[in-house]
């Protein structure tokens, strides 16, 4: 991993098009400003991994039995 030292207000540039700036330091929190083209997704790592895992778990085969919403089922009286 490349490690660079930066001061408050300084930036790094990635690939000539992504700029990451140290915006503020608050105790042990570093606020980063990120400028990237709209086709470059930027996410907090933990939320990215959470949703990625959820998507992988959700990918299904269409032959599975699809349940019924219970409140929809209540609208139809049982025979």
């Amino acid at each position, binding site marked *: 991993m490349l490690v660079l030292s930066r001061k408050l207000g300084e930036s790094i540039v990635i690939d000539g098009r992504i700029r990451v700036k140290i915006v503020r330091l608050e105790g042990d929190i570093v606020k980063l400003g990120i400028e990237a083209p709209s086709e470059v997704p930027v*996410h907090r790592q933990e939320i990215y991994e*959470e949703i*990625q895992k959820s998507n992988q778990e*959700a990918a299904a085969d269409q032959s599975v039995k699809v*349940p019924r919403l219970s409140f929809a089922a209540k609208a139809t009286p049982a025979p």
Partner: protein
Amino acid sequence: MKTMELPQRDERNSTQGDVVHLPLGLLGFEQVKNYSLLTKPDEEPFMWFQMDNAPHKAFLVISPFLPFPEYQPDLSAADVEFLGLTAPQDALLLTIVTLKREGGAVINLKGPIVINQRTLIGKQVIPNNACDYALNHPLPVS
């Protein structure tokens, strides 16, 4: 952008079978860019978001507003711009359903899929207020 004003999806304008293009894919499925949105009459209000390159693989999806009318994802300005949304009614919101092996189902309210219904461009977004919503919101199913 607040999406609370979103109307319920009009079934007469159903996008059944339409190919939706996700330039960034879904998180964890970045390589799959095209999906077909399919409805089967006996499975409604659920729909299938089917991968175009692997037709047997799909995501079960549902409008978040049906089980959870008070859902108000706050889309970032960057996402609104990316999707080219000019009016709230342009946006179709879908949430991904996970069917649990032990029975039951949950929906992911932290990462909804937003589709511009005019252009059929979509994105799985993380709303500004994602922390207010659950990744595994229980869905009442039987």
